[in-house]
Each structure stands twice: as structure tokens, then as C-alpha cells.
């Protein structure tokens, strides 16, 4: 359940509110909330009448915009906590645990889903600096968001766990930052661990990224060791933002969220000019005009300032109604002063689709509301209503990737107590028709039938990814095998040091959306890391696998896949269905077919006996209760013709066989 700490602060004439929200247990404690309240209140009283602070004394050369990039669990959030403490943004209670990761799922999974940023004031060599730490989502699903966050910085800290060395995500993040032209400062973390091998990790950094590591910082974010060297290093090595105070206002929108009280909040990096409350701004992408209601910095919560000027990073609230209006990567300019939009903008693109259905059809409305609420804060989820003959009314949701999907599902279940059935995820395939038209298909039901395929389809295409796998060399054999069983095209494998291998492999995206990651982890005993980036579409022989129960197709069990997978998948799915379908009063034939050809056939034999042996006086009540329970269970079954299909049937086709 969400707990909301609402702080009301009387500042000047205006009552304004803050909400520190978090999930039960691990979250911002009430004492922290109280402390933040005191801090906020005290700072307010000292500032201008409206409670706005003035940061106009920080020109670009007194500003550093930087991020931290790291593999999962390499200590990014802990380092952020230490930096916030060092600069007094949060107090040193020793209780700050990943202050920037606010979602429960973020803490549980050790990942950052929603980037959070914070501004810090720091004195170095007698000069005051405004340091903006721009957090980045830590997962490949959000690589576009990462790239936009990086575009708001001039440099980044590449944080590497000295015990684990560089991992696949380190590599992917490095190249993203490198691609943005950022200054990269490698730092070795967790050097206090007995298993730390800083020299080896440094060597890996040099061989993978060709950057010198002679003066590399050795720190322990956990103990605070070497932390005081981090910000000076950032100031000295990362260049200040460029841009002109006299040019018309131009800003990059790189993050956004929904705040119950002020509506949509946009995080921006001001590239030129300045902005203040009351200014009218325009979105380059949509052309929509907005009036700025509030500008400020994240300190670590929203704190209004008199203005935001060139080089600075902060938030604006401008009466946007939904997050869908705020497009990450968009450029804002002042009304009547259009500018050239910043490069790199792409609208959100769904890479994984899955059907979501309420288990109890009566919960449709409630689920509808929950999905709406969740997407209010995550415009990257695409939502389409979908009706399945087998599962009834539901939605087809598009996600940036599988983690994004899992997080969404988890939040739906945990925060909204939703009881849902999710169909097997699919990727957006492309169908090229002979008349030149290209269509995307989100769901197997959109896949052309055999006749259309033959007469009108020119080719079928599927999305690919370029992946990086890093693992100890003893797993080379099993990793190569894993890639080849997933139709991977192995490009290179290189040694990062004497024992660690980096494998580059092109994989169909469809192969990694189900259980690739789990199998990678199990085959390497957890030692392999994996990351990828999109690599466009390529021709692929795609076919649709259908499941028929007593001759009737079950739309929710259909899947699109590569021709080479069909025989195994067909046999596998038929077998699994046989295991979960209960015997009924007639034989149930399970067929998997493709293009009208039967691939596998199984039969659930007719129920031969189903009768309670003893039923006398004392059994009456129990028998009736059992009957009621069975009737309830029957209601939850999905009926395909006369065949009753349990929920497990849908789950059973979601994972690939373990061979």
C-alpha cells in the first residue's frame, strides 16, 4: 500500500504541499519526512516572499551536470545518497537508503525505473558550485530515457564494482555516454570488500573502453571511503555546460512524472536563455503552449526558484494534464521565439506487447481504473482495448521491454491488488505486403492467415537486438550454446582480461522476451551479465502457431514465432496443456497447428470415474461445501466450446521448455 506523507508548509502567502510517497516498509521513514519538512520549512523562511530561492548567481562555469552509470548493484544509489549527504541535501543519519529510488519495485530489484535527480550546492577551492546529479534509469528497456538523461549532462561517473569488475550493463551504459560525447570518469566502488580486485577491474576498464585509469578513484560508497574526492573530481574533469544566456530560451525535457498536487512535473536542462514563473512555453513536438506555474530545483524534493537559466537543471510545472503530453526528448522554447529542436528525439516505442485480462470478468472496471492510474505516471505504456474469445475483455499493453512489463505487472498486483492474467509477451513483428504497405502486428490475431500470406505478403520481419554478454571464460561453451539455441548470430568474443569474456551477439528480440535472461543466469550460475540495444528489423520466416481444443482455435494461446521454433514449441505447448487440462466427460483433443498443418496432437482422455464413494448423513454438509467450492472453481475456468480451460493453461505456454 502506498503511504503518502503530505507536508503542508506555510510560506509567504501561499500554502503549498509536498508529498513524499513510498511503499510500506523500506521507504522514506516518517522521521525522514519530518526532517525534510523541517529543512524545507527553514530554508523557505530564509528565502524570498514566495519561498523561492535565487540561483541566478550560478553561471554555467559554476555548474556541473553529471550522472552516474553503473551495472545493477554496483552501488549507484548508495553513492548518490553519500553525495546528497556530503552536500547537506539530506542529513547523515546513516539511515538513508537509496533516497532516489522511490518505488518499492526499485528497491526490491535494485534498479532505478523512474529517474530522480537532485541539485546540490558545493564549495570547492573557495567557489560555490551548483552540482546537478541526474539519475538515469538502470535498465536497457529504458535506453532511450537513459540517452535523454545523458543528453542533459556533460559528463558521467562510470561506477564499477571492484569485486565484480565490468559487466554487460557497464559496457552498454559506457557506449551510450560515449555516444553522447560525455566526459567519463571511471570510479571503482566497494574497494573495502575482501573480494575486491581494483587492479583487475581497472585493467578491464582500460581494455574494454580504452580510457586511462592511472589516477582512478578508489571508493566505498557504503563506508564513505574516498567520497570527498568524488565531487572535486567531477568539477575538475567534467566540463561546464555550454550555451548562451542571451539566446532565446531552449530546454531539453528529459524526465517527467505526475504529482497529485501540481500535476505533471517536467525535468528540464536549460540549454540557452532562462525561464521563470509566468513565462509561456511551447513544445516543439506537439506545438502545444503552456504557462509556467512554477520553476525550481530538486533538493531533493521540488523546491521553487526565482528562475532557471542557461546550464541549469530543474523542474517546471506548467499545467499539463497528463504525462502523455510530456515527451521525453522534447524541446521547449518560449512562445513566439521558436528554436531549432534538440537532436535525438524519438516518440516512445513499444517493444514488447502482452494481453492483460481480469481473472474475474467482474473486476474489469476496477482494473481499468488501476491501469489508467498507473499509466498516468508512465506514458511509455501503450494501451489498447482487446477482446479475446477465450479471455473476454481486456487490454493489449505495449512496453519498452520485459523489465518494464514485469515492473508494470508487479505494481498492478501489489499497489492496486489486481488479479490478472497476462498472456505470453510478443514483440512487434512487421508484415510487408506486395503493394508496399508495411504493417506492425501487436497480437497474434493480427497475423495474416495462410491465404493472405501466400497471395499478398511479400515478407515478414522481426526486430533484432545487438547484445553484449560478459562472463567468466569457463561459461563460454554454455553461453555460445545459449545464443545459438536462441537463433543468435555470434559476432565476436573477446577477452577483457585473462579470464573474462565479452561476447557480442545479434539476437531476435522475440528470443529474449521470455526466459532468456533466467536461463543465462542459471547456465552461468549467476555470473553472466547481459545487455542489449535495438538493432532494427530483418527478414525472418515467421509463422503463427495456433492451438485448437476439440477443433476450436483458442486465440489467447496463439503465438507468432520463427519457422525453426515451431516444431519444438508446438510439441511442447500441446504437452503442457495436456498436463493442466482436467479430464472431462469427453475426450479433449489438443492440437497445435501452423498454416493448417498439425504439428502436435495430444488427447486428454475422457473422465472415467468421478464420484464420491461415501456419502451418508454426516457427509452432507461437507459434500455441499465441496460442491460450492467446485462450482466457484468452475466459474473461474475459461470455456472454449465445451472445454474448460484453467488459468494454468495460459501460464503454461508462457515459458519455453527447459529442454
Amino acid at each position: 500500500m502506498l503511504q503518502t506523507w503530505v507536508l503542508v508548509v506555510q510560506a509567504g502567502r501561499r500554502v503549498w504541499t509536498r508529498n513524499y510517497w513510498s511503499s510500506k516498509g523500506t521507504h522514506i521513514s516518517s522521521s525522514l519526512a519530518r526532517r525534510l519538512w523541517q529543512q524545507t520549512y527553514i530554508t523557505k523562511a530564509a528565502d524570498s516572499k514566495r519561498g523561492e530561492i535565487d540561483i541566478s548567481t550560478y553561471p554555467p562555469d559554476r555548474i556541473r551536470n553529471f550522472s552516474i552509470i553503473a551495472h545493477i548493484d554496483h552501488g549507484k544509489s548508495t553513492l548518490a545518497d553519500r553525495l546528497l549527504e556530503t552536500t547537506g541535501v539530506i542529513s547523515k543519519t546513516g539511515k538513508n537508503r537509496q533516497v532516489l529510488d522511490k518505488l518499492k519495485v526499485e528497491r526490491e530489484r535494485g534498479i532505478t525505473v523512474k529517474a530522480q535527480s537532485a541539485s546540490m550546492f558545493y564549495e570547492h577551492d573557495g567557489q560555490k558550485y551548483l552540482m546537478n546529479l541526474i539519475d538515469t534509469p538502470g535498465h536497457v528497456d529504458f535506453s532511450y530515457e537513459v540517452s535523454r538523461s545523458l543528453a542533459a549532462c556533460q559528463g558521467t561517473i562510470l561506477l564499477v564494482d571492484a569485486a565484480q569488475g565490468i559487466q554487460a550493463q557497464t559496457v552498454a551504459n559506457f557506449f551510450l555516454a560515449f555516444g553522447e560525447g560525455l566526459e567519463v570518469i571511471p570510479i571503482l566502488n566497494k574497494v573495502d570488500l575482501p573480494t575486491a580486485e581494483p587492479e583487475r577491474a581497472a585493467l578491464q576498464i582500460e581494455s574494454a573502453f580504452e580510457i586511462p585509469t592511472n589516477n582512478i578513484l578508489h571508493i566505498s560508497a557504503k563506508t564513505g571511503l574516498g567520497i570527498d574526492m568524488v565531487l572535486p573530481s567531477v568539477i575538475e574533469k567534467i566540463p561546464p555546460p555550454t550555451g548562451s544566456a542571451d539566446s532565446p530560451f531552449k530546454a531539453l525535457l528529459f524526465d517527467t512524472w505526475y504529482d497529485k498536487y501540481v500535476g505533471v512535473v517536467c525535468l528540464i536542462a536549460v540549454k540557452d536563455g532562462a525561464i521563470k514563473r509566468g513565462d509561456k512555453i511551447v513544445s516543439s513536438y506537439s506545438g502545444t503552449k503552456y504557462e509556467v506555474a512554477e520553476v525550481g530545483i530538486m533538493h531533493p524534493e521540488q523546491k521553487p526558484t526565482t528562475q532557471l537559466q542557461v546550464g541549469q537543471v530543474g523542474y517546471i510545472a506548467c499545467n499539463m494534464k497528463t504525462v502523455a503530453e510530456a515527451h521525453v526528448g522534447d524541446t521547449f522554447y518560449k512562445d513566439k521565439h521558436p528554436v531549432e529542436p534538440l537532436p535525438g528525439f524519438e516518440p516512445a516505442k513499444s517493444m514488447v506487447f502482452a494481453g492483460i485480462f481480469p481473472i474475474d470478468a467482474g473486476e474489469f472496471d476496477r482494473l481499468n481504473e488501476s491501469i489508467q492510474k498507473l499509466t498516468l505516471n508512465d506514458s511509455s505504456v501503450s494501451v489498447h482495448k482487446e477482446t479475446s474469445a477465450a479471455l473476454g475483455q481486456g487490454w493489449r499493453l505495449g512496453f519498452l521491454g520485459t523489465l518494464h512489463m514485469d515492473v508494470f505487472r508487479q505494481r498492478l498486483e501489489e499497489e492496486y491488488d489486481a488479479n490478472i492474467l497476462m498472456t505470453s509477451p510478443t514483440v512487434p513483428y512487421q508484415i510487408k505486403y506486395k503493394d508496399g504497405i508495411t504493417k506492425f502486428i501487436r497480437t497474434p490475431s493480427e497475423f495474416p492467415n495462410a491465404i493472405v500470406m501466400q497471395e499478398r505478403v511479400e515478407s515478414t520481419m522481426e526486430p533484432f537486438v545487438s547484445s553484449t554478454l560478459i562472463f567468466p571464460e569457463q561459461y563460454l561453451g554454455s553461453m555460445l550454446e545459449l545464443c545459438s539455441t536462441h537463433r543468435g548470430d555470434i559476432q565476436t568474443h573477446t577477452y577483457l582480461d585473462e579470464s573474462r569474456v565479452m561476447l557480442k551477439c545479434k539476437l531476435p528480440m522475440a528470443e529474449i522476451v521470455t526466459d532468456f535472461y533466467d536461463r543465462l543466469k542459471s547456465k552461468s550460475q549467476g555470473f553472466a551479465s547481459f545487455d542489449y540495444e535495438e538493432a532494427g528489423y530483418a527478414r525472418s520466416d515467421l509463422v503463427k502457431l495456433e492451438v485448437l481444443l476439440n477443433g476450436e482455435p483458442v486465440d489467447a494461446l496463439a503465438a507468432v514465432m520463427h519457422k525453426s521454433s515451431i516444431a519444438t514449441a508446438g510439441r511442447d505447448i500441446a504437452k503442457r496443456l495436456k498436463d493442466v487440462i482436467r479430464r472431462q466427460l469427453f475426450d479433449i483433443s489438443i492440437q497445435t497447428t501452423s498454416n493448417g498443418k498439425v504439428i502436435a496432437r495430444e488427447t486428454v482422455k475422457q473422465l472415467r470415474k468421478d464420484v464420491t464413494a461415501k456419502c451418508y448423513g454426516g457427509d452432507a454438509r461437507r459434500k455441499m461445501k465441496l460442491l460450492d467450492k467446485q462450482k466457484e472453481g468452475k466459474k473461474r475456468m475459461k470455456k472454449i466450446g465445451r472445454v474448460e480451460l484453467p488459468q494454468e493453461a495460459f501460464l503454461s505456454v508462457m515459458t519455453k521448455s527447459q529442454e
Partner: protein
Amino acid sequence: MNLGRKTPLSIYVHWPYCSFLCKFCAFSKARVPLGGVEHERISSALLTELKTVLAPHSDKTLYSIYFGGGTPSLAQPRHIAQIVQMANKLVPLAASAEITLESNPTSAEINKMADFKLSGITRYSIGIQTLNDQVLERMGRLHTGAEGLAAIDRAKQLFPGHVSCDMMFGFEGQTTSEWQRELETVLDHADNHLSLYQLTVEPGTPLFRDLNAQRIKLPAEDTQSQMYETAVELCSSRGFRHYEVSNYAAISSAESVHNKGYWQDRQWIGIGPSAHSRYTDPANGQRIHSVRIPDIQRWAQSCIDNGHGTGKVDLISSLEAKQGAVVFGLRMLDGLSNQRFMSISGGQPLTEYLCMQSVQQHVQNGYLKWTNGSACLAPTEKGLQVIDSILLDIIP
């Protein structure tokens, strides 16, 4: 039997002690205590309770009394006689009333058989369970197969035409042909009635724990079905009519009057710890289901203190009553007559209560049939075998 005009009533007497505890038994029971059963305390509590709970039903006629348990053949015959006499005094027994005693085929109990007959018992039911001595031992039963057969032979002399025996099938390791041979032997000795149960693993029993811990493995589902089918065929070939899921009778008068009462919605009063009752409250016409306190000592104390040991009383809604009538009625191959159903439903006919689309489908597929010119809905032999699935389809 003289049906008369009075409302029929049955009595169930729960005698809670056993000399040994069977691994499969889920009934409420206790092993005979070290110092022996307090016969006087139990029987006086039973008599007190009987007097209290039977009093309001004096305008009915007793069709049957059934001594179950536990092991009621461990009771003293004179106490059984007292209960029968007391019941008859409160509610007159019909002329041909059936008074059954359940027993185990141990020599001690066999020796008491004649005394039970003198106590008023008219029907003797013997728990043979199996003729396989190893299985008997494994199940915790302290008698042999030979003793089982000897008990039948002895009972036939004392209660000719009124002896029943219980058998079970589906024990670990048992094959269909073994079961068939066993049943053939039992049929050679049997009187007019047999109850043949598939071994059912009830939660809370030692058997259930053994199965869950995978210490034992029961025959495959298809083997169990085969055993059931074997029972049906073999009994039929020997002239025993299959009249309920697990019950067979050589002549219709041998069918258990008492048990048919459960399946045909008759009222009954249960006494003794954990006994259930189902009756219509004479005061207000409410259908009642009640359960006596299960703990023997607490039940006995309550009988002394309050005159009865009732633990729980529930009203039976009209919906429950209708559902019950169908669930129990369709366990019998004679089925459920529309007339009987309407007496329970307050005039609503079966065709208006059941999901008729499903009923028709099952009739077409040969699982159900309308008999007596559509006056009665009954399962076919094939339908009875899967009646639990069918009930789920046809009950709304």
C-alpha cells in the same frame, strides 16, 4: 413396510470408541481408554440425549435405527437394548423397522452377536474391508480375512437375509484381478447386501499423511475406475442390484432403509458425540441441521448438564435443501422423483430448478434418463460413475 400416514423418522446412534484405529478412517472416534470404556456414563448420556431430542418428534414413525461409530459392537448389548426400547417408547417403531448395528469381525464381537439380536438388532453390518491380511495389518485393523468370512457366516445364521458387509478397493499395490478374486470370495459368502467402497483418502487421516509424504502410492486413476467397474459387473452377474454408488442388494427389501433415508431426504435425529441430525422443527417448520459436540467427555458432560450435547445448529435454506435433494437423490440409480423434489422445493418442479440445457445434453449422451414417464430423473450406470461432474453441470 407399512408406510402409514405419519412422517417417517430415523435415528442414528454414534458409539465413539474403537479397539483399533484404521488408517483411512475420518470419522469421529477414540481408542478404547486404558481403563476400559465407561459404559454406564456413555449409555446414560446417550439415553438422556435421546429422551431430550426425540421428545418433540413423538407424532412421527421410526423407520430405522442405526448404530454406527466408532465401533458400536463394542457396546454392551443391554445398553443397545435400552436405547432401542427408549426410542420406541418416544416414537413408535414401524412394524418392520430396520435396526442396524455396525461391527468388526473380531472374535469378541462375533461372540456377542446373539446377544445383540436379543437386544433388538435386526440387521448386522460387518466391516470386512479386505481379505488380504497384510493390507488389514497395514491399515491397522486387528482381524484377518478368514475372521471376516467367518463373521459373515455366523451373522447369516442369526440375521438371515439381513446381513451386510463392507469391502474396500484401491489399496496400495492392489490389482484389479486381485480385487476381483477377493470380491468373488466375499460374494460366495455374502448374504443379501454389500457395500463396496473405493478407498478414499480423507484429509486428517494417517493415510492422507502417508500419501502426502509419498510414503505410499495408490493405484492409478484408471485402475481404480476398473476396480469400480469390476464391482458393478461382478455384483450384477451374481444378481446383486447396484442401487447406490457403493451399495448393492440381492433383493430390493435388502436395500438399507436407513441409508436410503439420507439419499431420499428423510428426517433423522443423531445422538452421541459428533452425530449429525437433519429434521424439520415441529415448532416452526424450519429445516434444521445440527451437530453434537465431537469431544466425548464434553459431549457426555453436556448431556448431564443440559440434557443434550448439541454443539451447533444451522438452518437449512430452501436453496440448500433443493441442492441436497439433487446431490443425494442422484446417487441412487432409482434417481430423484419430481414429486419428492417438489415436496422439498415448495412446489418448484425439477425442470424449473435444474440447468435443463445441461440435463438434456447429459440425457442425450446417456448419462441421465427420465424414467416413469418423466416423473423421475435418474443417472444411468455410466452416468453414476461420473455423477459428481454431472452435478456440477446441472445444479444452478
